[in-house]
Every structure is written in C-alpha cells, then in structure tokens.
C-alpha cells in the first residue's frame, strides 16, 4: 500500500507577525517555521497504518522553497515517513489552492497512491480546500474532518465530525482524507531518528519535470493589515444598578449613538 501525505510548512503559531512597510507584505525573515499541526495528524495516521503491518510506504509531499527541508526531515521523515517529495517551483510561490492541488495531484498521479492524507486546513491561511480539490482532481473518494479511521480490504470506515455529533462513513480506496484534531496524538521525533532521517530519500521536482502548466491563480493576496486597534473599555461607576443602567443608556444613545 502506498500512502501520500500532503503537508505544508507554516509559521509557528507563536511567531510574532510583523508587516514590512510600506508594501504591507508579511515580513517573514524572522519566522520560525513548523509543520502545519493538522498535517501532523495526517503524518501520524499514515505512520500508524505502516506500523500496523503489511507492506506500506509513506511519502510526504510538500510544495515550497529549500526551507521546507528541515520540516520534512524533522517532522515527517524522522517520525516514520519513508521518503519525501518537494515540489519546488517559483510559480507556486503565492499560488492559490487550485494551483497547489494541480501540482500535488500531478505527483500523486505520477507515482500512484492508494490513500492520500492531509490536514483539514493549514493554520496560516485557514482555507481548508486542498483535500477537497485533490479528491475531485484525482477522482478519488473524499472524506473530510475525520477523527477515526479503520482500513479494510480496498475500503475504509471513517468517523467524521459534524455539527452536534459524528458521522460514520464507508468509502472505497483509493481515497483522500482530511484529518482533524482527535484522530491521534502525533509523536515527537526521537534524536536517533532525526539522525537517520538525513539518509532517507528526498526528491525535488518542478512543474516542468511533471510536464505541468499551472492554472492561473484565481485569487491573490494583495495586502495584509493588522486588525484595527480595539476601542477603549469604559467602566461605569455608579451608586446602584438603576443608576448604572441609566448611565449606560445615556452613553449608548449620546456617545455610541446606537440607540
């Protein structure tokens, strides 16, 4: 069985975001970059399937520049993925989900996989579209937001989160699944495995290598701006609740002009 895990490198959630003046672009020079936490569930699930036995090969697929190599090594290869493929192409910088999925789908089609796992979304842009688009492009079954997975012979049973409960879905393989918190507890790499990870194969491909023309991105990010500063909180200091309410009504009417 061949499993592809589509992953993304994102800024650490504790990274302080600064905007580079004057173009209002993100200043990413000081970013600490990590594996997207939702993708870590996908990696862990793939590795667990491998550990459960049988002939399983797990490949991590990522798009991005040279800097993704550290994330691949420490958070994918060192925790049990067998190899990694980097789609490194200037055209993918700032590309939208459609372009990204096109490139990933090309790699997945080229090598042929029985199962594709990815996080439900990436914590940087929060778009959550990659898995769905991949399912469509690859003509595979797609189950999103899974919190439990059982693999059968040529089929799978997954639990997925829905509002107010859970849904149990059966699907045939090959399939694309997006992973949600609760699916598993991602392990940390061990120090010896970090050392061994350096010896695992890491392939770099470009869109040209894949014979691919990327679709024009339908959306582009024009500007970033920090959220507006919050207004000041006013505490009403009154003798009794009735007086406080009168003062509140007055302020809402005269100052805030909302009533």
């Amino acid at each position: 069985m061949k499993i592809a895990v589509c992953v993304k490198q994102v800024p650490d959630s504790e990274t302080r975001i600064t905007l580079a003046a004057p173009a209002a672009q993100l200043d990413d020079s000081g970013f600490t970059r990590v594996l997207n936490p939702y993708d870590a569930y996908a990696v862990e699930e793939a590795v667990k399937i491998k550990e459960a036995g049988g002939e399983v090969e797990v490949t991590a697929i990522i798009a991005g520049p040279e800097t993704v190599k550290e994330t691949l090594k420490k958070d994918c290869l060192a925790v049990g993925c067998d190899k990694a493929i980097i789609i490194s192409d200037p055209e993918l910088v700032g590309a939208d989900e459609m372009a990204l999925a096109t490139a990933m789908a090309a790699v997945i089609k080229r090598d042929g996989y029985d199962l594709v796992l990815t996080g439900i979304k990436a914590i940087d842009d929060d778009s959550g579209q990659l898995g769905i688009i991949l399912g469509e492009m690859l003509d595979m079954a797609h189950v999103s937001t899974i919190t439990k997975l059982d693999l059968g012979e040529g089929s799978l049973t997954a639990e997925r989160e829905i509002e107010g409960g859970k849904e149990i879905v059966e699907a045939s393989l090959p399939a694309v699944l997006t992973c949600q918190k609760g699916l598993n507890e991602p392990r940390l790499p061990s120090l010896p495995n970090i050392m061994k990870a350096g010896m695992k194969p890491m392939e770099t491909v470009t869109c040209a290598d894949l014979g691919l023309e990327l679709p024009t991105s339908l959306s582009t990010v024009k500007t970033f701006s920090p959220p507006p500063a919050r207004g000041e909180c006013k505490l009403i200091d009154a003798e009794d609740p009735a007086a406080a309410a009168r003062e509140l009504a007055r302020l809402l009417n005269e100052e805030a002009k909302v009533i």
Partner: protein
Amino acid sequence: MSDAKYPTGGEFLLQETDPADCFTPEDFDENQRMFATTVDDFTAKHVLPVVEELEYEGDTTLGKGLLKEAGTMGLLMADIPEAYGGMGSNKATIMLISEKIAHAGSFAVTHGAQSGIGTLPIVYFGTDEQKQKYLPGIATGEIMTCYALTEPGSGSDALAAATTAMLTDDGKHYVMNGTKQYITNASYSEIVILFAKIDGDKFTGFIVDLSSDGVTIGAEEKKMGIKGSSTCAIILEDVKVPVENVLGEIGKGHHIAFNILNVGRFKLGASTTGGSKMALSAAVPYTKDRKQFEQPLCSFGLIRRKIADVAAAIFMSESMLYRTAGLLDVAIDTLDKKDAGYDRKSIQQVEEFSIECSMIKVFASEVLALSADECLQMLGGYGYCQEYPLERIYRDERINRIFEGTNEINRMLVPGMILKKAMKGELPFLQAAQAVADELTGLPSFEEPGEPEFLENEAKLVANMKKIVLATLGMAAQKFGMELKDQQEVLADIADITMAAYACESALLRTKKKVAKDGEEAAALMANMFTLYVHDAMEDVSTWARNVMAGTVEGDELRTMLAGLRRLTKHDPVNRTKLHDAIADKVIEAEGYTAE
C-alpha cells in the same frame, strides 16, 4: 602531552587562540538544531503539563514516567556509544541537550542523574560485559540508574567514605555496609553506581542492584528546591554484590569519581546556562506588559540595566561553555574510535580539561544565581509569589552552587590544576609567569596608542587579564610553595581572575568569529555584551589581584607589583547606559536571551 597537536587544558592562558578554531553556538549543524527543538518539544509536551504536581506538590514519583518517555525519544542515549545502543554524540551535542533540558526544571536533575553520572561510569570504566548488560537498557530508559558517592560523614572529602565492602570466603561476593545520601533518583532506580572501600581502605566503584537484600531506600529529603526530583539515602546492610560488579580497578574508585565529576561539571555549566535563559524569558515579557507610572517597566533605566547585565553574563557562560565543548571534541577526535580503549581514553581527554570544567561549573552557576535574583526583582512582588515561575527558579538555582563539587572546592581546583600541569611539564607556565613578572617590575612602555580598531581596546583587556593570572599565580606559587594549597583566599581570588579571563576571551573569540563571518553590524549585540562585561570584569580582576598581591608580598616588592598591575588594569570607563540600552532593546524585542 605538551607536544600534542590538540590543545590541552589551561593552555588558553599561555597562547593566542584563532577565532576560527573556537567552537561557538553559531556553529551548530542542522541535526544539533533539531535536537534542541526536540528537547524543547519534549518539555512542552510532557513536563510543563505536570509542573504543578512536580514543582509545587513535590510529587517525586513522576520522574520515573518522564524518564521512560525521555528514553523513547532518545534523550538518555547521547553519552552512550553506538555499539551499546546509544548515539555516541560529541560533547557539543551533549551540552546542548543538557542546556535545553534545563527548561524542564526539576526533571533536568532527574535526567542528569540518569543520563550523566548514572551512565558515564559504565561507559568510561565498565568492562565489555558490563556495558552489554546495562547500557542498552539505560539508553532507552528501561533500566533506571543513579550515582552514590556522598555519605553523611563525607561530602567534599569524598574519599573519606565509610561504606565498606568485604570479600566473602568463597570469593564470589562483596558484602557491603554503609549509608549513602542525597542520591538523586534512588527511589526508583534499578541500579546504582556506588563507591565503597574494599577491606575498609581500597576505595572502589561498584554497580549495585538496588533490589538486593539488605538495601533500604530512605525517605525523600525535604529540599528547598528542585522538589520534583527524588533525593533519598541508600542504606546498605550486609548487601551481597557479585565480584563481577566491581567497576574499574580495585582501589581506583577515585579515578571514576573525579572523572565523572569533571563531566558532571561541564554538564552543569550547560544546564545552568539553560536555566539563566529560562529566567530571562520568564521576566522580560512581564516587563513589557507591566506598566507603572503609565510606562512599561522595560522602559525604565534600572530595569533595562538588569536585562542587559543578565544577558551579557549569559553570553559569557554560553561562550565559554561551547568553546570548551569544542576543545573536548577536538581532543577526543584525535582518538581512534576502533581502539578498544577508546572510551577510557576519551575520559582521560576530558580530564585534561578539568580546569575548564571547574571554571564553567562555578561561572555558569553563579550567572544563574545573578539571573534568578535579578529576574525575580524585575517582577517585584509578583516575583516573590508562586504564581510566577521565578519564585521556583530562585529556589531551584541554589543547589547548583553546591552539588558536583561546591563552588569553593572547584575554585581551589582551578589554580591547583594549573600548577599541577605546570609541575608535570604539560604547561610551560613558570617561564610565562616569570616573563610577566619581569614586565610588571620593568619600565613601562611609553608607546602612544593610535586610534583603536574594533574591539582592540577590549582585546587588550583580555590579554592583560591572562597576564594577571600568570603574575598572581606565579607570585603565589613562588612565595608559598607547597603551602599554597592552604591559602584558600589567595587561591579563590586567583580562580576568579582565571575565570574572568577565560570567560572574556571566549566571548571575544566568539564575537570575532561572528564579525569574520557576517560583519561588524551583525556582531553588534555580541560586541556590546562582551564590551559591557569585560570592562566590569577588569574592575573585579583589579581588586582580586591587589588582594592576592597584598596577601603574598609586602613593602617595596608589593609597591612595585601594584604599580605594574595598575598598568595592566588601566582602562577608560565605557558609557554603560548606552551599552545597556543597545543590549536591552534586542533582548526585549526577542523576549528573552539572544546573541543575534
């Protein structure tokens, strides 16, 4: 050894080091950086969620589970050779792991007992059979181990141990009796590296199975800090230990004990450096958020001074720590890994640097004392309350100046070891000391200094500090001869001068290496921290040296020496406020220690 191609301990006093040859934290490779973040991740995932139980409720039983977890992540195997299931890491990597694990508070002590002092005696002195039997399990955490040297009646004077081991009539066992105390991890360890006197006089190391009949583990000590670590006595009553569990040679237990202490000391230098960084990280964000007089605390000069002084002191610790790691690695790299005696020879290489190991232990633990104290002060009343971690860091810090050889004992060792190496002809110390003495008593140079280059004045201060070490130690050795060992105050002052020289030179070399690689601007923070520290240190060095001289000679001789000393210590003051501001800006922006 003096003609060896690799450096030897104490040599820094007598020669110049090329910055390119000085290992620095900027030289870590990708694997080492990943190890560092993995240790941080371990602490965040497994230790921080149980901080309350560990550190405030003092649940010492948690250490065992945490050690197992650390074992599965490979955090216990750095020191163990690959042939026995470990990683056989170099010293720089081992120090980095020790530095990072410090953020785990009490667990750092638990971790150190298992992976350091509980492991290394077997690595360095065990037979192949002993290594095969124990090391793979110790590496993964399946076997818990600890180290027992101290007794109720013998602490610093470790060789005065009263625990005895008597051979049975059939020659198959030793029967042990005695009490060991302050044994970290004793309550849940399977084995202990224990020292006892065979026939009451031959001090010898043993591997003792703690499940043996006659072993009693005492109650947990009620400690001031590191409350999450287990500390108990081990009482031995007619405990039978198989003869094959003798570690090393009979009567040579002191080789094990003292050599393991050397390694323990440099590891402690690493963990206290990590602790200092933790203290600063716990304080700086507070000074940004907390406002008084409608201004954040970090905008006030006296808070900024504290931030900068602590950061500069950490920079010193860190620089000397990793410089020493590099020296040890270069020395160990000259050995043949295939040599059957490789492990034993590597500990001999470490022993060569016992001067540096002692200096790091004392210096870095005292930097942690400063960091804990000043960072607590930055939080004011909140710092005194358990709601913030500084109250705990302040208590936990204290032990570091006591264990692995008190700072007093280690201070005695520094000049003592230099002289020992000089006597053995390993260091051409006496000739160099004579040359400096001649310079001090000779005529001053009237050379007019030109416009100084970047850090040129400060580099001169460092060079002069090294001369002052030679002058004071040479003088004291000449005056007191064999009696010098009893002149504890003189020795301590000389040790302090030596530490200042080593710390300042290490920081200078690191800064120069950075300048050579990335330019003066990129090295500005390092240069500022070094400059701030070296000027302050020269004031201290001047005082210590004057005291040594006054305690050693008198009359005209004293006056001549003091005049010479004035020439060496002369320096114009720097604008400290300006330096404090420049350093504090960077540290406040990074919300903790940074050298970038």
